[in-house]
């Protein structure tokens, strides 16, 4: 990937000393130190909820620190608003973009600081400057394109341009690769290179180890709000980084005991179905999953995986075909009937389908079982039983912060939200568990956790259907891999025989022997 470092070790751009930030009795940042030089890419690594974003919000003026000092260009400063941060040359690109979709790139960039000519906005001048900046860092952004028409990667560049346009020398990028394709990630890393070559500093908040290795000079590790250490990225490997982040040795490979698959749990035959545009997307799909095996469904997004899972879980009606669970027909049954016959799922979108964010963790943990004893009797909720159940699961599945059963699920970090869902679905202990992208957006510690529970279900002789866009995940977990392409299963192989190239080719519609 050819990382070129532009660090100017003599010039410190930003220094944060002993930053403490408390919310009530919760300490989000506990004496954290950070030094960023001119031209440096500095990664901040930590698990979900470790306090990375809090630290950056302190630097960007969104939070005031409880104690600690901040120096910009050697001078001690107090940053009490984002406006002040921008004046000092600090810019932030948030994980969720703050753009107005029907406006052009230029219009979005000047929003709030429109250059005027008399009473009218001087778009021409602004457009010229946007063009200049874009070319200078080789960003290839069309200043006249509407945000709603351009790709996510391009939108992110518009955000970076916005920050540069406001004169930022220090750019904070919050989880910048979360929604990018591998190609776009590569391009972003190149842009970061151009920025540092020009003397800008970049702070990268992330939990993706590969990207840190590919782009960062230094990495500061934070664990549960505490400063662990700052390392030179060249001197450590991914495994070291992961262990420092989690605080223990991390297993990248999951331990699976050998098992012979048993009876068929799920059998799908000749399934046809339409997508949201009413176009046929499932074109006669066949699939079986047996007890004691994890079947990985590999495929490029948009080949029918989403619709398959929606039909299997009752959220969508299929057109024709046969879906059997343990020999009983569940084709086009309601979600309730399907659940009762023994299918649970970890949904792809945890905030849309998985959780009611306004509900407490305890309430979320009974989402399917609220009407059953002991959680309710004769239509009355049994608060004591619900809380006991929640306490047990929060402890067992290490949902943080501890004792969060009464908190609204929306206040938990993404990884902990996922733990709540896993806790619920695994506890349901159904014959078939369908997991859709179960580790998306999670850090290595949480990923290991999720994988462990999927394998545990298999080892308990249950069936698991894993649908994932992460090939690594599919290959390391699956006993059998099926490839979905254009609404059909186009091939399969044993998990232990799988290699990335063959799978990649099959996912693109090629045949294994080609």
């Amino acid at each position: 990937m050819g990382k070129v470092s532009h660090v100017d070790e003599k010039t410190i751009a930003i220094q944060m000393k002993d930053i403490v930030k408390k919310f009530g009795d919760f300490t989000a940042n506990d004496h954290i130190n950070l030094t960023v030089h001119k031209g440096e890419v500095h990664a901040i690594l930590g698990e979900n909820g470790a306090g990375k974003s809090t630290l950056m919000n302190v630097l960007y003026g969104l939070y005031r620190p409880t104690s600690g000092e901040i120096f910009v260009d050697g001078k001690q400063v107090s940053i009490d608003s984002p406006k002040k941060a921008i004046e000092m040359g600090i810019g932030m690109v948030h994980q969720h973009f703050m753009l107005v979709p029907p406006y052009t790139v230029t219009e979005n960039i000047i929003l709030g600081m429109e250059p005027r000519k008399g009473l009218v906005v001087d778009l021409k001048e602004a457009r010229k400057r946007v063009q200049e900046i874009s070319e200078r860092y080789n960003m290839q952004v069309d200043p006249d394109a509407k945000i709603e028409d351009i790709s996510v990667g391009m939108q992110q560049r518009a955000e970076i341009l916005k920050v540069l346009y406001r004169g930022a020398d220090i750019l904070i990028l919050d989880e910048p690769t979360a929604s990018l394709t591998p190609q776009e990630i590569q391009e972003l890393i190149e842009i970061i290179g151009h920025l540092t070559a020009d003397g800008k500093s970049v702070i990268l908040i992330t939990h993706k180890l590969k990207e840190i290795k590919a782009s960062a000079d230094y990495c500061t590790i934070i664990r549960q709000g505490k400063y662990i250490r700052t390392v030179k990225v060249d001197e450590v490997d991914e495994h070291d980084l992961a262990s420092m982040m989690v605080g223990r040795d991390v297993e990248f490979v999951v331990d699976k005991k050998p098992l012979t698959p048993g009876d068929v749990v799920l059998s799908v035959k000749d399934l046809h179905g339409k997508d949201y545009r009413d176009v046929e997307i499932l074109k006669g799909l066949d699939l079986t999953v047996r007890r004691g095996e994890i079947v990985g469904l590999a495929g490029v997004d948009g080949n029918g995986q989403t619709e398959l899972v929606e039909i299997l879980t009752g959220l969508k009606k299929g057109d024709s075909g046969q879906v059997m669970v343990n020999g009983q027909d569940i084709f086009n049954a309601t979600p309730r009937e399907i659940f009762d016959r023994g299918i649970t799922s970890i949904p792809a979108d945890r905030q849309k389908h998985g959780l009611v964010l306004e509900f407490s963790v305890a309430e979320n943990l009974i989402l399917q079982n609220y009407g059953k004893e002991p959680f309710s009797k004769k239509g009355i909720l049994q608060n004591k039983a619900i809380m006991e159940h929640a306490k047990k699961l929060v402890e067992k599945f290490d949902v943080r912060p501890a004792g969060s059963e009464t908190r609204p699920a929306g206040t938990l970090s993404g990884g902990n939200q996922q733990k709540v869902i896993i806790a619920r679905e695994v506890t349901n202990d159904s014959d078939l568990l369908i997991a859709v992208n179960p580790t998306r957006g999670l850090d290595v510690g949480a990923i290991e956790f999720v994988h462990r529970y999927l394998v545990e279900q298999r080892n308990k002789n249950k069936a698991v259907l894993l649908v994932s866009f992460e090939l690594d995940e599919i290959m390391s977990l699956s006993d059998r891999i099926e490839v979905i392409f254009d609404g059909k299963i186009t091939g399969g192989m044993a998990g232990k025989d799988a290699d990335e190239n063959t799978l990649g080719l099959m996912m693109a519609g090629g045949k294994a022997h080609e």
Partner: protein
Amino acid sequence: MNEKKSIWDSNAVYTFISIIFGFLVGAILLTAAGINAGEAYSKLVTGVFSKPKFIMWAIIYASPLILTGLSVAFSFRTGVFNIGAEGQFVMGSLAACVVGIKLSLPAPLHVLVCILAAMAAGAVWGAIVGLLKVKKGINEVLSYIMFNWIAFYFSNYVVNIPAIHREGGGEATRDIADTARILMPEAIRKATDCQSANWGILLAIIAAVIIWFLINKTTLGYQLRAVGFNRHAAEYGGINANRAMMTAMAISGAMAGLGGAVQLMGMSGRISQFASQEMFGFQGITVALIGASNPIGCIFAGLFYGAMKYGGSKLSLIKTPSEVVDIIMGTIILFIAVSHIFRKLLAGRKKGGN
């Protein structure tokens, strides 16, 4: 540092601040109009509190408002905006009126039948809107508003049916049977010097407690709240979202219908031909907002609105337009709506300060 839950985290504080601001803005406008605000406000207070009779009247005014407030608050909690409480109120009132005139039953039974008829009518009126939403995808706000007018004209039509219409003069129905009234015993009415003193307030409080229990403590409430917050997750969890939504709209309608029954059976005893909407349903929205969509909060908010309405009616005695009450109530709602901004400011200061 072990911080206790600050009072600034409580809804009631913001509501209280908003009420103060409402009165301040009202005072400014009164002063601008050349009216002595102090005098007007003292009239408002003495007009409600200076005699037991006045207090009783404020409660009579409050009872139907608590119920329409409850109706709207319940809908808010389940993700629907019941702007149709007005129409459900009218339908409930009308059903109770017809049953109250046409049936002859012994007293307690007659009351019960009238109340059930009113709740059923309100529920059906709300459920039809739900049905249109679920089956045909019609936005409930639109149909609610249209159903308000359908109820309005339907009521005027029924009032003029000869079998219902008053004999002799007056554009109104006959009086309902005494067995269908919910007046308090003669002794209390004499003691308070208020002939219209009725049990409506008791019905309202019982309804509020039942609704509170239903929302928070039952599996039905769990389903309705889940659908209200996140329909997708609810469906994923096996809850039939369409059915839950219709149930919620029917219960909400039943509360407004009960409000109509209370107004009829407690206070008016008959239905007059409408010239304009009576606003009980719309005022319920205000009650729900002041009560923070909490059923118990609605009791207090309804009493407050009832007192303001009754006290306001006396302002004309000192040549002050009673509309000032509407201005105050409107301002309060405005301030409650922006109260989350206060909250953020205060929370930010607290975070920065310690």
